[in-house]
C-alpha cells in the first residue's frame, strides 16, 4: 500500500548542448530524448497522474526536453516485510519464540512492534516500513546521464578517450534546471567532464557567452533574442515565409521538395532565405541534372516560373540574421558556378564515349558478388526480355519493331553506371542514361525506356511511360528476383538484403498496369531457365516453386494492400483453375475486382455456401477409387427433375462462362454464375447424392465434380469466400 501525500510539482528543463548534430539524425534524436525522459520519470515515480507529457525541441546544436510539472519528491512507499508464520512465532504461553525475536532483531525492531499480517498462506508475523521518497533533484541527478547518453544514434563517436562516453557529436554544455524563477535549482550531474548548469548559449556567431536562465519561458525568449529558434515547427514556418518573401513579386516559385525543406529546418538555428542567380548558359544542361546538383551538393531550392520552366535562380537558406552586403549571395553564386562547371565537365566528358561502346566496361562493374557483373546481368536480361517480347507478340501486344527496340534498350540501359555523372549522382542512374541516349541520337522510345527503367521505384510510383520501358523494367526485376533466389539471397522474415520484395512488387505492378496481356507464370518459367543457364546454384532445390510462391505473395500484396480487395476474394481468385495461380496478373486483378463487386449479393453468398458443400462432399468421397474428377456424366442415368435441370443449367452456364471469360467480361460471368442458384438449391434439397445404388451415386458425384470444376472453381475458387466477410 502506498501512502499518497500532497506532493508539490516542479518544472523540469534539460538542454544538451552538442557540436553540430547531422541534420538527418536530429528529429529522431529529439523524439528519442522525449521517450527516454518520459520512461525515466515513470520508473522514478516522478510523474503525477495528471502530468502533462514531456515536450521536446531541437536545433543542430541542442536537444531540449521540458515538462511543466513533475513531482518534487517521489511519493513515500510502505514496504511490507513478512516474517515467520504466527503459529510458530509464539509458544503456548504466548511468549515470542526464537523465530520471532530473531526476525525482529534482523529488522532492528522489537517483537512488540511487529504486526500480524493476513496472507494467502495464512497468518504471519511481519512489519510495515515506511520508505521516504527521495527528492526529484537527487534521483534525476543519478538518472539523467543515462537518459542522455542512451539516445539512439545510428553512428556515434568518442571525443575524449576510449574510456569516455559515446554520442553523435561531442557534448559541450548541459543545462538542467528544476523549478522556476527564484526556486530554480540545477540538477547536478556530469558527462565527460561537463557539469550541468543553468546556462545556455546563443547562435554560433555570438561566441561562447553563457546565458543564465531560470524558466522555460525565459530560456526560449532569451534564445530567440540570441537568434536561436528552438522549435523545429516554428523554423519550418519561418522558412516557408522567408522563401515566399524573397520570391514576392517575381512570378517565380520553388520546386516543392519536402526532404530538402526538412533538412534545412534541421540544419539551422535561425533560418533566413536568399534568392540567388546563375548564368543562363548552364540551362543547356538537362533540368534533372541542374536540380540534382543544387539539391544534393548545395541544398538549394530550384526555382521555376509560372509555366513550370526551370529558371536560372535558386533559393538558399542561411543560418544567419541577414546578408547586409550581399556577400553571402555572391559566395553561393560563385560556388554554384563551380558546381555547374563540374556537371558540365561530366556531361561533356561522358558524351564523348557513346553508351553503345560502354557495354564492355560493364564487365568491370559488379552487380553482386555471386550474381556477377552488370555485363552478365544484361545478358540474362536480354534472354528474359526475348521471352517477354515473344509472349506479348503472341497476343498482338507488341510488334517485331517494338521487340527490337526492347533488346536495344536492354543492352544500353545499364551503361550509364560507367559514367562520371552517375558516379557523382547515383540517384540519377537510368535518368542520365536516358538523357545521354537522347543526346546521342537514339530513338525516343529507346531513350525513354532507359530513362524510366528503374520505375516504379515503389508501389506508389508510376510505371515506365512506354511499353518498351515496361518490358526493360520487368526484365531487370525478373532477373534480380530469379538470380537472387538462385544464389540464395531470397527474403526471409523481415530480412530482405537485396530488396527483392520491392522488385517483386514492381513486377506485379508492371504486369497489372502496363503489360496487361502478359502471362507472368510462363515468362517466369522461361526466366528461370535463362538464369540457370548462366549462374551457379546456391539456393534450395525447388527454385521454380519458390519463385512462384514469392510472386504469388507479391500478387496478394498488390491486390490486398494496393487495390484494397478483401483477403478471401484474393484467395478465391488466386486459387482458381484457369489459369493457375497468378497466371496473367492483369486478368487476376480484373477477376478480383469483379468478384469483389458481386460477392455480397444473396444469390452469390448462397452459391458460395453451395460451393463449400460441394467441395466437402467431393473431398469426403475422394477415397472411392471409382471416381475420376474428369469422368463424364452419364446423361441416361440422370433422374428427371432437379438432377437433370442442374445438369442442363450447368452445361449452358459453361458455354456462357467460356465466352465471357474469353472477352474479359468477368462481372457478367460472376452474375451469370449467381443465376444457377435455384437449380443448385433445388438439387441439394431434393436429391440424395450418396444414393444406395453405386452407379447412381457415382453419376451424381460426377455431376457435382463437373459443377465444381466448370463453375465453382473456374474463374475463382468460390468455396474460399467467407460468408461473414461482408463489410469487413
Amino acid at each position, binding site marked *: 500500500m502506498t501512502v499518497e501525500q500532497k506532493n508539490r510539482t516542479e518544472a523540469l528543463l534539460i538542454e544538451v548542448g552538442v*557540436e*553540430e548534430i*547531422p*541534420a*538527418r539524425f536530429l528529429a529522431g534524436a529529439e523524439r528519442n530524448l522525449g521517450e527516454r525522459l518520459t520512461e525515466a520519470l515513470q520508473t522514478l515515480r516522478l510523474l503525477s497522474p495528471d502530468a502533462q507529457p514531456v515536450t521536446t525541441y531541437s536545433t*543542430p546544436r541542442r536537444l531540449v526536453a521540458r515538462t511543466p510539472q513533475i513531482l518534487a519528491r517521489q511519493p513515500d512507499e510502505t514496504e511490507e516485510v513478512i516474517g515467520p508464520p504466527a503459529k510458530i512465532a509464539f509458544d503456548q504461553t504466548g511468549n515470542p519464540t526464537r523465530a520471532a525475536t530473531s526476525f525482529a532483531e534482523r529488522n532492528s525492531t522489537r517483537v512488540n512492534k511487529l504486526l500480524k499480517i493476513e496472507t494467502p498462506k495464512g497468518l504471519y508475523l511481519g512489519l510495515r516500513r515506511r520508505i521516504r521518497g527521495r527528492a526529484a533533484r537527487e534521483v534525476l541527478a543519478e538518472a539523467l546521464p543515462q537518459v542522455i547518453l542512451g539516445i539512439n544514434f545510428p*553512428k556515434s*563517436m*568518442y*571525443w*575524449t*578517450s*576510449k*574510456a569516455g562516453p559515446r554520442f553523435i*557529436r*561531442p557534448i*559541450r554544455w548541459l543545462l538542467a534546471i528544476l523549478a522556476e524563477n527564484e526556486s530554480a535549482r540545477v540538477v547536478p550531474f556530469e558527462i565527460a*567532464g*561537463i557539469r550541468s548548469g543553468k546556462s545556455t548559449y546563443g547562435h*554560433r*556567431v555570438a*561566441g*561562447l557567452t553563457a546565458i543564465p536562465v531560470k524558466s522555460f519561458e525565459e530560456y526560449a525568449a532569451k534564445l530567440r533574442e540570441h537568434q536561436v529558434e528552438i522549435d523545429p515547427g516554428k523554423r519550418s514556418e519561418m522558412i516557408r515565409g522567408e522563401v515566399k518573401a524573397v520570391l514576392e513579386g517575381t512570378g517565380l516559385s520553388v520546386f516543392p521538395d519536402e526532404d530538402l525543406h526538412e533538412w534545412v529546418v534541421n*540544419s539551422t538555428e535561425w533560418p533566413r532565405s536568399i534568392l540567388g542567380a546563375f548564368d543562363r548558359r548552364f540551362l543547356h544542361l538537362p533540368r534533372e541534372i541542374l536540380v540534382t546538383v543544387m539539391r544534393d551538393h*548545395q541544398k538549394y531550392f530550384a526555382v521555376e516560373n509560372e509555366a513550370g520552366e526551370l529558371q536560372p535562380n535558386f533559393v*538558399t537558406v*542561411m*543560418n*544567419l540574421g541577414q*546578408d*547586409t*552586403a550581399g*556577400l*553571402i549571395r*555572391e*559566395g*553561393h553564386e*560563385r*560556388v*554554384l*558556378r*563551380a558546381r555547374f*562547371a*563540374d556537371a558540365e*565537365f561530366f556531361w561533356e566528358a561522358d558524351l564523348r564515349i557513346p553508351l553503345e561502346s560502354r557495354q564492355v*566496361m560493364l*564487365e*568491370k*562493374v*559488379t552487380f553482386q*558478388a555471386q550474381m556477377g*557483373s552488370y555485363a552478365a546481368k544484361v545478358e540474362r536480361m536480354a534472354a528474359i526480355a526475348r521471352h517477354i517480347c515473344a509472349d506479348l507478340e503472341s497476343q498482338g501486344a507488341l510488334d517485331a519493331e517494338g521487340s527490337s527496340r526492347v533488346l536495344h534498350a536492354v543492352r544500353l540501359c545499364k551503361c550509364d553506371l*560507367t559514367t562520371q555523372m552517375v558516379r557523382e549522382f547515383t540517384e540519377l542512374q537510368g535518368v542520365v542514361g536516358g538523357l545521354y541516349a537522347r543526346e546521342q541520337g537514339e530513338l525516343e522510345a529507346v531513350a525513354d525506356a532507359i530513362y524510366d527503367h528503374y520505375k516504379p521505384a515503389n508501389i506508389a510510383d508510376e510505371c515506365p511511360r512506354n511499353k518498351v520501358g515496361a518490358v526493360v523494367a520487368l526484365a531487370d526485376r525478373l532477373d534480380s528476383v530469379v538470380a537472387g533466389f538462385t544464389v540464395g539471397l531470397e527474403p526471409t522474415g523481415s530480412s530482405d538484403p537485396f530488396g527483392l520484395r520491392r522488385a517483386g512488387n514492381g513486377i506485379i505492378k508492371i504486369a497489372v498496369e502496363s503489360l496487361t496481356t502478359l502471362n507472368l507464370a510462363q515468362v517466369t518459367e522461361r526466366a528461370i531457365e535463362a538464369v540457370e543457364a548462366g549462374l551457379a546454384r546456391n539456393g534450395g532445390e525447388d527454385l521454380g516453386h519458390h519463385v512462384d510462391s514469392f510472386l504469388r505473395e507479391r500478387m496478394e500484396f498488390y491486390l490486398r494492400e494496393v487495390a484494397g480487395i478483401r483477403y478471401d476474394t484474393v484467395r478465391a481468385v488466386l486459387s482458381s483453375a484457369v489459369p493457375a495461380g497468378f497466371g496473367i496478373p492483369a486478368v487476376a486483378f480484373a477477376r478480383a475486382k469483379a468478384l469483389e463487386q458481386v460477392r455480397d449479393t444473396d444469390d452469390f453468398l448462397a452459391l458460395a455456401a453451395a460451393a463449400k458443400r460441394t467441395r466437402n462432399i467431393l473431398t469426403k468421397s475422394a477415397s472411392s477409387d471409382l471416381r475420376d474428377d474428369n469422368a463424364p456424366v452419364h446423361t441416361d442415368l440422370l433422374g428427371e427433375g432437379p438432377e437433370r435441370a442442374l445438369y442442363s443449367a450447368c452445361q449452358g452456364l459453361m458455354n456462357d462462362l467460356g465466352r465471357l471469360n474469353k472477352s474479359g467480361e468477368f462481372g457478367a460471368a460472376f452474375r451469370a454464375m449467381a443465376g444457377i442458384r435455384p437449380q443448385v438449391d433445388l438439387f441439394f434439397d431434393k436429391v440424395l447424392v450418396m444414393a444406395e445404388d453405386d452407379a447412381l451415386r457415382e453419376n451424381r458425384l460426377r455431376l457435382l465434380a463437373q459443377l465444381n470444376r466448370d463453375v465453382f472453381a473456374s474463374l475463382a475458387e468460390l468455396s474460399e469466400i467467407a460468408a461473414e466477410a461482408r463489410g469487413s
Partner: protein
Amino acid sequence: MCPETFFRVLGPKPWSVAYVQPSRRPADGRYGENPNRLIKHTQLQVILKPPPEDVQEVYLRSLRDIGIDFHSHDIRFEEDNWEAPTLGAWGIGWQVMLDGLEITQFTYFQQSGGVDLDPISVELTYGLERIVAFLQNVNSVYEVKWNNSVKYRDLRHREEFELSLYDFESASPESTRRLFEIYEAEAARLLKDYFAADPARRPTRFPLLKVYEFCLKCSHLFNILDARGAISVTERVALITRIRKIATEVAQVYLEQSTAAAEVKSV
C-alpha cells in the same frame, strides 16, 4: 596522409602540430578547368591531440583572425565523416561550409592504421586555395594573386592539366598495377623480416617511414586506377584490403617501437 599525422595520432602522447601539405586526389582532376576543384590542392593540416573542449571555437577564431567576419558570412558545420579505407583511418566530423563553399574538413579521428585511438585527436584540414580565393574575393583559385605579378594560374595551371591528363588518359592500367605490386612487395618484404623476429627481439633499427611511404604510393596508385575506372567493385575491395594490411602492420611497428623506446628511457 602525412606520416606526422598517421603516426602521431597513435599512442597516448599529446601532440599538437600544424603544417602545409599537398593533397592529391586523382578523381578530382579537372584539367585546370574548374574554379574550385584541383587534383592537387594545398592543405594546412592541424592535429590537436587531445583537442581542447572549445576546439570548434578555436577553429572559428582562426578564421576570424585571417579576416572572415561571421556577421556577414554564413558558416556551417555539415555532416561529413572522413575515411581513408586504404590506411585503416577514419573519423567523424563535418565539412565546414563558408557561404556554401567547403573550406575545411573537421574530423575527430577514431582510428588510424586500424588502431582505435586513445586519446582522440582532432584533425583540421584547411583548403588553402579556396580560403585565399575567398579572402581575395576572386572567382577562381587560379585568379589568386600569389604576389603582385604572379597569379596561381601561372604557378599551377599547367601542372593541373598534365596531372589530369595523365591520371585520366595517359596512365596505363597495366604499368600502374605493376608499380603497385613492386611497392607492395617491397613493403611486404621489410615487414616480413621485422615480424619474423621473436616479439621480444624485434629490430630497433627499421626503416618504418620508408615502408609507410611505399604504403602511400600504393594508395595513390590505387586512386589512379580507380579514377581510370580500371577496377571492378570486387577488385576494389581486394586492393583496399591489401593496402590496409601494410598500413595496419606499419601502425603496429610504430606502437611497438615507441613502447620499446619508452621502456629504454625509463631504464
